[in-house]
């Protein structure tokens, strides 16, 4: 119970503070933007608007700690963590082949989420990416990045 309360307090402060840090960084970076001479600045300096918006977000984030504390609505379950791992696998496989990465992700996700029928796993992991590839390649004339499998089609 105490653990839960401590966690709630951590989230209440951590999220707004992360937002504030992000905006503070944006303001710092914006101070490095080139400044225009008055005749060319067209009303406002390029750094003015981002600083105004980031300042407003900081104000709202501070207000949220008091008025609308941030709470974790749901805890991440094993399926969510597994999905993140599969996304990492997807990112790692993209340099090998875009569609191979998509197929592995799709079949992996279906399996992770409880699908065990081989025909459906094959449909999701093979048929769907292949159909989408040909739809975009032939109908929309989209060229995909070359890779292990796409080279078989592109030559």
């Amino acid at each position, binding site marked *: 119970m105490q653990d839960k309360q401590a966690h709630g307090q951590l989230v209440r402060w951590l999220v707004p503070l992360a937002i504030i840090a992000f905006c503070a960084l944006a303001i710092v970076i914006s101070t490095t933007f080139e400044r225009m001479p008055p005749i060319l600045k067209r009303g406002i300096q390029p750094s003015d608007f981002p600083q105004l918006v980031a300042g407003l977000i900081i104000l709202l984030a501070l207000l949220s700690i008091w008025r609308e504390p941030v709470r974790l609505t749901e805890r991440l379950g094993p399926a969510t963590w597994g999905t993140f791992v599969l996304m990492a696998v997807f990112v790692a496989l993209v340099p090998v082949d875009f569609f191979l990465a998509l197929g592995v992700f*799709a079949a992996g996700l279906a399996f992770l989420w409880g699908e065990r029928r081989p025909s459906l796993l094959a449909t999701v992991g093979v048929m769907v990416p292949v159909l989408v590839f040909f739809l975009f390649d032939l109908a929309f004339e989209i060229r995909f990045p070359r890779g292990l499998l796409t080279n078989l089609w592109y030559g």
Partner: protein
Amino acid sequence: MDPFLSGLTALADPGLITLLIAATLGGVVIGALPGLNATTGAALLLPFTLTMEPVAAIATLTAIYCSATFAGAITAILINTPGTSASATTCLDGYPLALRGEAGRALGMAVVASTFGGIFSIVCLMIAAPLLARAAYNFAPPEYFALTVFGLSMLATIGDGSPIKNLIAGALGVLLATIGVDLLTSVERFTFGMPELYEGISFVPVMIGVFGISELLVQATNLHLERKQITMKAIKLPSRDDYRRVWKAILRSSGIGTFIGTLPAEGATVASMIGYNEAKRWSKTPEEFGKGAIEGIAGSEAANNSATGGAMVPTLALGIPGSPTAAVILAGLMVHGLRPGPAMFTEQANFAFAIFWSMMFVNLLFLAIGLYGAKIFARVTLVPVPVLWPCVFVFSIVGAYALDQSMFDVWVALGAGIIGYFMRLFGFSVVPLAIGLILGGMLEERLGQSMVMLDEQWWLMATRPLTLFFLILTVLALFGPSLWGALFKQRAPMKSTGE
């Protein structure tokens, strides 16, 4: 030729008709699938429309908008799970009716009320949008700036009622819109030397990420949910007695929905809630609500579908999205090089009316689809979640890539999806982020123009009546609910003491 009629001639194109039929069927499937909604569907299909002519592209997106909003009722009635959040109130009476073996009657009423609401709002759209555009034609940059600020302030009221979090999300979207080379001064901002960021962050991958990929991650936590579908013999048209009971509710909700839809950022969900509550308030038998009142379905469905036409009024006439899906459509307009606003009704009036007529056609089409095909479409709710969402991911990623054939956009979509998921996990809505990103560039441009016009004396904005009017509306939108709440809280104990 008059734009009103020349817009109608667009429907003489068999290609467009075929496309609208396909988009309507697709929209019904999207709306009927729990977890997918009109916004996600439009965001996922936006890349498919890039190779189309602008009329076909935007008509496709609006067809998905209208039909998916209607189709949410199918799952709401048959499996007690709203296909879209706008159909949440339809569950309250639709499912109890279905449990009593009257699923066909409930769906029949949903189809009729949705069609009436949709057509009513499109007639209003045809009349109101050009009038609004004409009124806005003489707006100068300060008026536009104040109007855009008002549009953004309305973000506070969307979602689950966390105004500050909504405003933070909206402002973050506006901040993201500042990334890239400033068009007025050619100064690089937040580009970190990456050429991919020179033109800023593209709307489409962000939309795909926050609406599609983040929803996939949300679905990962809902895998335990079991959906049982109630069997339905055939859909039934409402009886004469039903019509007698609901016609006032349908008419009232259509008006409410159209009005709510025209408010910036407010969409079908709010409309359906108010439509349902008003149907209950004016009903002779309010005690039946929640137990299978046919007026409840009529009130909710007429309101949510009429909000679709209403939402297109500010989207097309002012360039301010009337709902989350309208924001995706607005992004579609921009991607096709069209600039929504008053000029659209003078320079591209034929285009605008072609879109209106397409929406009218779609509403009639889903009347037919709803009456004859709802039973078939109800079966799509049985598609297993582990099969559906991997397919959504494939479409999302390929769609993000297809925009500019750039892997950078894929990483943006993936990143936006993960950020969007964590935002939702911490109680932030992703809709304001998307709308902020779309309106951010416009807001800065208008602020700059206003400052030039007012000799950098920003306080002079308050001396312009219309600008002041929009700024007062903004203050009311931001602080009105709190003030109202404080007043209500003060009066409540007095009332209880008196009793």
